[in-house]
């Protein structure tokens, strides 16, 4: 069990937990929380391979992680704004009540 395998297992677990939450929970905000967890798990993968991989001297993993953080921040902002707009219209954030409604 090398450190690389340890990191990859941690990131796989985080990804699975995020996926389970995003598919299971009924509140829209918690779906977004699950998506953010999945993004973080993928970032952890990048950093793990940058640290323990075979290509030394290249900081591509860190740069990709940085861009991924920026994209995730923008996506969280827009997603939460959408949730606010939907709430203002439908007065609820419960997905089981929102699915199938003619908006």
């Amino acid at each position, binding site marked *: 069990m090398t450190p690389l395998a340890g990191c990859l297992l941690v990131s*796989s677990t985080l990804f699975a937990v995020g996926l389970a*939450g995003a598919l299971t929970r*009924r509140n829209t905000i918690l779906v977004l929380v699950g998506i953010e967890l999945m993004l973080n798990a993928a970032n952890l993968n990048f950093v793990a391979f*940058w640290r323990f991989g075979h*290509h030394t001297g290249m900081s591509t993993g860190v740069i990709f992680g940085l861009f991924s*953080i*920026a994209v995730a921040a923008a996506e969280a902002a827009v997603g939460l704004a959408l949730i606010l707009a939907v709430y203002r219209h439908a007065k609820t954030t419960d997905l089981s009540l929102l699915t199938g409604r003619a908006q």
Partner: protein
Amino acid sequence: MRQMSAAFLILAIVTMIAACAAMTLRGLVHCALALAVAFAGIGTLYLSLGAQFLGLAQLLVYVGAIAVLIVFVILLTRGGESDARPLIPTGLPITGIVVATTILALLAWAVFHSFAIHSLGPPASPATVRELGTVLMADYVLPLEVMGLMLTAALIGAVVVAMKEKQDTQ
């Protein structure tokens, strides 16, 4: 197992527990706070792996901005009151857990049957801030500019989408 330091193990366990808590707790604000702990745990994992700038940026952006944003939206959409939802979902939502477990099993199998379990690899060079800046400006200047445009578009879009409409609040 011997090569992984105790610090990494503790951080990994704390992060995983926080992530599970973020997805299973009842109160929404509790979930958001557990998510903030998970983000902080991942940030410290980056720091322990040697990616100093990335770890601090993760703490600044995710914990300091995104977690606070999620908490604000929870409060603005009156999600603070606990909804009477059964903790163990019945019926259709169980497939979500089954899918996630399957994917975890597949990924774990892939990790254990890959080169990762055998080889260690030489440690990467430390990514100092100066080197990151040089690389960003030299090799990745186009993605950097696109990132700036995208962040501006996201900012304007979020403000426009969440703006109160003037007419139908009567």
